[in-house]
C-alpha cells in the first residue's frame, strides 16, 4: 500500500500547489478528477518522486522522508506515465521499453526479455520491431504503459492517458488497464469520466490543490443522487449524466 499525506507542496511563499492532500493507493483503480490547474499532474509527479513535499509517505508500511530523493526501492515500485510519451529516437518499440527498464535498474538482458511481456500486456507485441516513432498517439500511450510495467511497478500513476485518443484506441487502453489493475494499484488522472470511472473504482476529486472528495465510485455517484433528491427521475438517469452531475456538484463552475 502507498500512503501519502502531502501537507504542502509549492513555493515557500504564496499559495501552495497542493495542501493537505491524503492519498492511499491499494489494489485496483483510483480515478483522480479535477478541473485544469487543480493539481492532478502535480500530485502524480509528487507521488512519482519528481517533486519533494512536506508531509508523510509510506510504502508498504515503511516510512520515507518525502522531502528527500526517493530510494531506489521506491523508484522501482512506482511507475509514472506523464501526459506526453515521447519515443526514443531511432529505437524500436521493444528497444524503447527495454531501455526504460534498464534506466529503472534492470540488467539489459532481463529488461530485453521483460519488454516483450510488457508489450503483450498492452497489446503492442505485434509492433515490437517497428520504430517507436511510427506509433500513433494511442499506441504511444500504450508504449508508455508498457515501459512502466517493464520494471514491475506495483503502483502505476497515469496522467490523462486517454486524452486525445479516438474511441477505439481509448477502449484498447481501458482494456489494458483492467488487466493491469488486477495486480497493481493504479492512480489515473483524467477528465474522461465516461471511459475510466467504473463501478469498483475509487474516486478522488481535487480542486485548487486540495481534496474536495475521496471515496468509492458508489459514494461519488450517490453524492449526485443526494443532491438530486428532489428529482423523482434521478434513479433512472444514465450513468454518464449521474457522473456529470456528481462532478458538477463538487466542482462548481467558477
Amino acid at each position, binding site marked *: 500500500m502507498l500512503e501519502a499525506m502531502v501537507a504542502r507542496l509549492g513555493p515557500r511563499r504564496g499559495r501552495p500547489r497542493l495542501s493537505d492532500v491524503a492519498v492511499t493507493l491499494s489494489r485496483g483503480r483510483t480515478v483522480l478528477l479535477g478541473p485544469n490547474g487543480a493539481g492532478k499532474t502535480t500530485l502524480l*509527479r509528487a507521488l*512519482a*518522486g*519528481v*517533486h*519533494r513535499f512536506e508531509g508523510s509517505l509510506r510504502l508498504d508500511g515503511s516510512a520515507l522522508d518525502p522531502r528527500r*530523493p*526517493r530510494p*531506489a526501492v521506491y*523508484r*522501482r515500485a*512506482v511507475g*509514472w506515465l*506523464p501526459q506526453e510519451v*515521447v*519515443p*526514443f*529516437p*531511432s*529505437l524500436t518499440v521493444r*528497444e524503447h521499453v*527495454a*531501455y*526504460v527498464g*534498464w*534506466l*529503472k*535498474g534492470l540488467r*539489459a*538482458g532481463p*529488461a*530485453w526479455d521483460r519488454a516483450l511481456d510488457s508489450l503483450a500486456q498492452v497489446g503492442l507485441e505485434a509492433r515490437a520491431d517497428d520504430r517507436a516513432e511510427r506509433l500513433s498517439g494511442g499506441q504511444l500511450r500504450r508504449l508508455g504503459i508498457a515501459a512502466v510495467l517493464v*520494471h514491475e511497478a506495483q503502483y502505476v500513476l497515469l496522467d490523462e492517458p486517454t486524452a486525445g485518443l479516438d474511441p477505439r484506441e481509448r477502449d484498447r487502453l481501458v482494456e489494458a488497464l483492467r488487466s493491469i489493475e488486477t495486480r497493481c494499484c493504479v492512480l489515473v488522472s483524467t477528465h474522461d469520466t465516461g471511459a475510466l470511472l467504473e463501478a469498483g473504482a475509487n474516486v478522488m476529486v481535487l480542486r485548487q490543490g486540495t481534496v474536495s472528495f475521496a471515496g468509492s465510485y458508489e459514494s461519488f455517484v450517490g453524492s449526485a443522487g443526494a443532491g438530486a433528491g428532489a428529482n423523482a427521475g434521478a434513479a433512472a438517469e444514465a450513468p454518464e449524466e449521474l457522473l456529470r452531475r456528481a462532478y458538477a456538484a463538487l466542482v462548481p463552475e467558477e
Partner: protein
Amino acid sequence: MRVPVPLRRRPVLVLLLPAVPLLILVSQASRTSDPLPGSWTWTVAHSVLLLIVPAAVASTGAALEASRLRTRRAENVVNTRSPTIVLLSAIWPSYAAGLLLQTGAIGLVAATAWGGSSAVPAGLLGAIAALLAFHLAAGFLLGSLLRPVHAAPLALAFSYCWLGFTGAVDWFAPRHLAGLVLESCCFYDEQPHGLAIAAAAAFSLFATSAFLSASAGLLGLLGEPRAALLGLPSLLLVLAVSLGLLLARPLGSTATQPRDTAGLDCSGTRIAVCLYPEQLASGDPRQRIEAMVLRLPAALGLPARVLASRGPATAEGLTLRYVPGMTDLQIAAALASGVQGDQLLQCSEPTARTIAREQVGDALRGWLTQRMAPSAGGESGMEPTAAALLAAVLRLPDDGQLRWASAASASLRDCAIVPPDRLS
C-alpha cells in the same frame, strides 16, 4: 551480452562513414614533401592537426546521444540507474569513435614520417584523449540543451571554431587550452613541455566534468531542482579556465622544451657530428655528414661540431635538421641552411635590394649544397632569378666562387654590406 542500446542504433556509427574518408582527405591536404621525423613523439604530436575530424565526430555523436535522454527529462528524475552509469552508457560509443579516428590519424601521420623511433609518449596521448573528451562533453551539453536538429550542427561548428579560433589568435594561452599547439612538438632535440601537456589536460578534464555535470542536471539525472545544480558546473568551468591559463602562462608559442644534450651521441675525426640515438636507429650517417662539412671552404669557417637541431646555429656548432632516411642532397641542403642561418636579415632598405639579398641567400644555399654534395645533382625548386645567379657563380673559377660566397655570406649577416652581383 546484451547492451542497453544496441550498437547499431548509435548515431556515431553513421557519422563514421563520412569521417573516415574526410580524415584521409585532411591528412593528404596537410601532407608535405619535407623529411619528417618519425619518432613516436613527433607522430603523436602532429596527429593533433587532424584532431578536427575525430573531435567533430565525438561532439556530434554525443549531441545526438544526449537527445535520446532529453526526450524523457522529466522521467529521468526518477530513474533507478546511477547517473554516472547512464552518462557513460550514452557517451562511450562517441568517445570510442573519436579515439579510433585519432588512432587512425596517428597511423596516417606515421605513414608520412620518415624514420627513427622513440618511446610512446604517454603524456601526449593522455592529453589528446582529454582533448577528445572535452569536445565530446561540449557536444553532449549542446544535445542536452537543444533539439538534435540544432544541437548536432552546433556541436560540429563548436569543435571546428574552438580549434580554428584558438589557432588563429595571437594570444597563445588559449592555444594551449585547445591543445592545437601540441603539433609544434617535437624535433629530436626537443621534448614535450610538461606544462603544455598539463594545461591542455587539466583544462579539458575539468571542463569535461563541468559540461557533463551540467548535462546531467539539465537531463534530470541528478533530480530536482535543476537550476541549483548548475552551480557546480560553473565552478568547475571557472576552475578549468583558471588552471589551464595558469599552467600555460610560462609557455611561449610552442609546446616544447630543449632536450638534455647529454643524450647526444658524437662521432667524427675532425668535426664531431652529434645525433640522438633515435636518429641513428636506422643507420649511422655521421661519417657522411662529416665528409660533407669538410668539403666546405675553410674560408667560410668550419664548425667544430654539428648538432642535431632544428634551431639556428649556435656557438656550440652548426645545427643540422637531420631525419633518418635523408638523401645526401637533403642532408647537404639542411647543412647549408644551418650554415646560412634560418633567420632572414631584416634591413631598412629599398625593396629592390631586399629582393637581391633574398636571391643571393637562395643562390648561396644552392652553392653550399652543391659544394657539400657535388655528386647529388642540383637543388630543384629554386626561384628562376636565384637559379640563374647560381649558374653564373658556378661558371666562375674556384677562387672567384669563394670570393662571391664569402661576400654573399657577409651580406646576409650585415645590412651595411651590399649583396654581391654575379660578376664580382
